[in-house]
């Protein structure tokens, strides 16, 4: 009974915040609504017993997304200039609203008519999990059964970074991106950024490490490590790295490259691309995940920082 009240409250709040995000006047209120909306989504994911997803949503939504969007809202403070399109006329607005209501109703119809019992891959996923040496079926799906997806997703992240960097002006190529920091620093923030990262790095590594058997994994751990790096940069304790740096680029590419290398190794050893040789599955998976975590920790801050805006030091 009370559980239902909780679920209904969560649903009502998440819809309210989504409504504000879409319809509020002003960009900053919309962005703050969206940040709060992300927090509520993690609560809903917990209620759906998707703790791995809740952790991803918390780590990405709570850390990097908020910084990215608030930074963007501030940079685009006068960006109403960009909106050259005329406001839509009311009849058109109503037509669009009707279309969206229709979409919602169609989806709701699908939700209400889902087959019962639901088709599921859970037995298959759990059945062979012993062969991978993992205890967390979500990690097993990500890194073993659907490893190809995960590897391509790593490539997508690297491509996104390439895309962001390619927006740089020619004279800044190889230089450092914006650091999202105050012109004059705040002493409190410096203290905070000295105190938080040791704990954050510990928690990030823990979440990565327990991901083999409990909720957690490379994405979640990597996103937390990324956030720690960002707070250090934002508090002026370290400069944003130059995009031309060799170690920077190695860190970005390490995840997909190691993943691909292990995949090819699997092809040689067992005639199956991305297959792990029997008995070596767990060590290989951990090996791949270490580099994935590293790559994610390097990629996400570079995505938030945007293209370089200062020329490289000679």
């Amino acid at each position, binding site marked *: 009974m*009370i559980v239902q009240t909780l679920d209904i409250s969560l649903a009502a709040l998440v819809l309210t915040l989504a409504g504000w995000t879409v319809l509020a006047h002003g960009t900053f209120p919309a962005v703050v609504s969206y940040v709060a909306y992300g*927090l509520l989504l993690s609560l809903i994911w917990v209620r759906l017993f998707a*703790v791995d997803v809740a952790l991803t949503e*918390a780590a990405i939504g709570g850390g990097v997304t908020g910084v990215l969007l*608030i930074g963007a809202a501030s940079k685009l403070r006068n960006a109403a200039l960009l909106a050259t399109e005329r406001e839509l006329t009311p009849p058109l607005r109503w037509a669009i609203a009707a279309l969206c209501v229709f979409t919602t109703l169609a989806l709701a119809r699908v939700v209400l008519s889902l087959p019962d019992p639901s088709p599921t891959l859970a037995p298959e996923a759990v059945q062979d999990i012993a062969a991978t040496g993992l205890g967390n079926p979500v990690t097993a799906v990500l890194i073993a059964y659907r490893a190809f997806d995960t590897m391509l997703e790593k490539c997508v992240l690297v491509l996104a970074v390439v895309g962001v960097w390619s927006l740089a002006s020619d004279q800044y190529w190889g230089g450092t991106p914006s650091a999202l920091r*105050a012109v004059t620093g705040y002493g409190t923030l410096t203290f905070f950024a000295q105190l938080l990262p040791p704990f954050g790095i510990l928690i990030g590594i823990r979440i990565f490490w327990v991901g083999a058997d409990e909720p957690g994994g490379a994405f979640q751990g990597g996103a*937390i490590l990324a956030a720690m790096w960002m*707070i250090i940069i934002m508090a002026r304790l370290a400069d944003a790295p130059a995009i031309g740096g060799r170690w920077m680029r190695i860190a970005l590419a390490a995840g997909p490259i190691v993943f691909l290398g292990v995949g090819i190794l699997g092809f040689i050893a067992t005639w199956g691309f991305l297959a792990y040789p029997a008995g070596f599955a767990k060590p290989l998976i951990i090996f791949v995940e270490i580099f994935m975590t590293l790559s994610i920790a390097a990629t996400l801050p570079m995505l938030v920082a945007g293209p370089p805006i200062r020329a490289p030091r000679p």
Partner: protein
Amino acid sequence: MTDFLLAAAVFILFTVAIGLVRILYGPCDADRAMAAQLFGSGGIATLLLVASATRAPGVEDVAMGLALLAAFASVAFVNSIATAEHDGRSGE
């Protein structure tokens, strides 16, 4: 006990959610950031209560992640004001 924990979760969630009207009505951006901050603490409390009531495994780690990143949006906000001010001055 379970019912009590869930009731407390609903109460706290709703209480802090009411504070969110500051996001819409400000009046200044600092108020909006504060509302989000309060909502963050309340959301973490709700999460801990729900986790304890439903015995969903591994949720403490989610709360730990949220707590670790609780300050990020506000830090980005404070930094963005100062950078915007600077850009404004240098641009004039």
